[in-house]
């Protein structure tokens, strides 16, 4: 970990003059935080907010798993159960996963990694956070007013005609949050194109920047489609005009095409930044440059582009024509190729490296393995014939949780730990960090692997009760959920503890090569005391 042969991306001594304040000491009042234009402070604002929503969504999941511990559980009524999995989905997708890495780690690091002093539009960045909070409050209002029972997917005609829950309110909350993410994406795109430091060509960018850039393309181009689709659902629900009602000439599948046109690229919004985090951590802790940097960058772009072409694989059994199903199945197989290239390249990066296992590395390696399993099961689901059997079962639930939780959440935690010294100026307890990572890994697999078996055996998703023969697997899954909950609570504890009692962090505790490590921990308000000049590519670790 203390290899002296690594070469950072710029050579200048960027240590600020003694007495320069960090961004944290710029102001201590609540007002200074709530009116800040500093991308780093806005990142912290996001971090606190999404953590709150994560635990709220987690509580919903906990109740679900408790209900499912017994075949005919009476913990909640069937109606409440529907509202719980809807709440879990809406909160976890839109209020946690989509903003997590881009709005927390991306906001903090993208300007620093390219050598800029802030994002292109700092006030827009703050507006994004306020929009996110407003959307979150509206969603909370919908939940407190009685909840929504349509599932996070709001399928018509149930959502437009038959649901008696607070659909329009929930739609409004998601709409507002969606605009928040569009503006964040816009900010990143303009920043990366126009504000790179001298010498920072496109192929010297850290892969984390590439990942956030591609994610931003998806945010800007896909989210507006979701926004309008949700507006149409609201119009249909309020006025019963018939856009999605076949009896009046509309088509319920039109909703699904429009919804999944966004929601499939949305899963790449959730996983691409995670891949970017892994690409920063793995080279650092194997002391080797990433294998095949150019292909990694191209693969990121390919995932973003092809990801727009595959949405119909969510609709194989919905009534879509078989011809369209075939086209989408083929395209879905294609999107697996760049993902696989990345997995191979991460593995090759490890080869003959000088590998150590601090907590971030445990999370990153866990990400690679679990993402691979999730991705492979995605291929099973992309196969038309298999999907007929597996669609709407727990197999699908397990698949997407492997990617979103085993993948994205683990990468997010890995990134939080990796950059924690930079953001806070403190070192967390490595022992606790490793234990938590292992508890999370074990708990995750115990929760979700049985769900593959359940789904394959025919257990449908979104059911509040099930035949007794499925109980063992459900019980294992619920036990895993308890373990996972403990694992997630641990970082809350030791990370918060480190803020006050942790050792003061040096500028570059991991001896990493990015520009963000060439400044103090925590950084000064304008990131660099002098504009950096980039003289070499990223990941100049020596083997």
């Amino acid at each position: 970990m203390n290899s002296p042969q690594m070469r950072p991306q710029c050579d200048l001594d960027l240590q600020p003059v003694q007495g320069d304040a960090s961004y944290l000491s710029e102001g201590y009042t609540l007002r200074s935080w709530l009116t800040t234009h500093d991308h780093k402070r806005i990142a912290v604002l996001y971090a606190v907010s999404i953590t709150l929503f994560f635990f709220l969504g987690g509580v919903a999941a906990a109740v679900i798993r408790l209900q499912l511990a017994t075949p005919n559980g009476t913990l909640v009524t069937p109606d409440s159960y529907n509202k719980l999995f809807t709440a879990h989905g809406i909160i976890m997708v839109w209020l946690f996963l989509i903003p997590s890495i881009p709005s927390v780690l991306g906001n903090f690091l993208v300007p620093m990694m390219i050598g800029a002093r802030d994002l292109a539009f700092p006030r827009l960045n703050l507006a994004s956070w306020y929009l996110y909070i407003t959307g979150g409050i509206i969603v909370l209002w919908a939940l407190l007013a009685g909840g929504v029972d349509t599932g996070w997917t709001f399928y018509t005609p149930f959502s437009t005609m038959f649901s008696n829950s607070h659909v329009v309110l929930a739609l409004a909350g998601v709409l507002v949050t969606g605009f928040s993410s569009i503006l964040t994406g816009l900010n990143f795109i303009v920043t990366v194109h126009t504000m790179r430091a001298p010498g920072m060509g496109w192929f010297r960018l850290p892969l984390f920047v590439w990942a956030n850039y591609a994610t931003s393309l998806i945010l800007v181009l896909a989210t507006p489609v979701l926004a309008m689709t949700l507006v149409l659902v609201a119009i249909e629900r309020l006025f019963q005009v018939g856009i999605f009602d076949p009896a009046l000439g509309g088509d319920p599948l039109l909703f699904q095409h429009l919804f999944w046109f966004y929601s499939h690229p949305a899963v790449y919004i959730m996983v691409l930044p995670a891949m970017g985090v892994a690409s920063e951590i793995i080279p650092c802790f194997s002391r080797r440059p990433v294998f095949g940097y150019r292909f990694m960058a191209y693969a990121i772009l390919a995932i973003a582009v092809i990801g727009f072409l595959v949405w119909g694989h969510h609709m194989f059994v919905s009534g879509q024509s078989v011809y369209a199903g075939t086209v989408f199945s083929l395209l879905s197989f294609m999107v697996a190729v760049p993902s696989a290239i990345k997995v191979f390249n991460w593995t090759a990066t490890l080869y003959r490296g000088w590998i150590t296992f601090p907590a971030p590395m445990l999370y990153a390696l866990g990400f690679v393995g679990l993402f691979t399993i999730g991705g492979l099961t995605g291929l099973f689901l992309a196969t038309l014939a298999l999907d007929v059997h597996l669609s709407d079962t727990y197999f699908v639930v397990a698949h997407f949780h492997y990617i979103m939780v085993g993948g994205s959440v683990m990468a997010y935690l890995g990134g939080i730990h990796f950059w924690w010294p930079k953001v806070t100026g403190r070192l967390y307890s490595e022992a606790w960090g490793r234990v938590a990572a292992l508890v999370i890994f074990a708990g995750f697999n115990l929760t979700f692997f049985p769900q593959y078996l359940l789904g394959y055996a025919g257990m449908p998703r979104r059911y509040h009760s099930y035949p007794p023969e499925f109980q063992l697997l459900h019980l294992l899954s619920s036990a895993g959920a308890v373990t996972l909950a403990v694992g997630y609570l641990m970082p809350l504890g030791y990370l918060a503890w480190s803020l006050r009692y942790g050792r003061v962090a040096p500028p570059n505790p991991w001896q990493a090569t990015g520009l963000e490590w060439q400044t103090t921990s925590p950084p000064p308000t304008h990131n660099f005391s002098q504009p950096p000049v980039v003289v070499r590519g990223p990941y100049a670790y020596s083997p």
Partner: protein
Amino acid sequence: MERTVRPLILTWLALLLLLAASAGTARLPLGWLNNVISLAIAIVKTLLVALVFMRLRRSPWLLRLAAMAGIFMLALLFALSATDYATRGPAQAPWQRPGAVAPRLGSSSVDTPPVEPVPPRPGDSTADAPSAGLHGG
């Protein structure tokens, strides 16, 4: 100032001329050609606005790329949805009960008799247990 103003005025005149052409040809009975002509004229007008008024003609390639990205995405949405719609007939609705569900704002259609909604059982939502195929993954 004059050198930069002239192209703008000329473009504006061209746009008005194209508008007149569009409105005029719409009244001629040309069958399917009507659609083609009106859309073609719309495309030309948009190109004029984009290239001259929005200065794409003289802009860096980056801005043109941004312009094309949006159009390309829209085209993708239409094209891939079309693989579905072009290869099946209109969705045969499994139930045909217009007016069965009252709109939450305003009243239902004038000509169809209102149908009594089934009162919900306590503790249940009004829909039946979700059937496979209505909820996707």
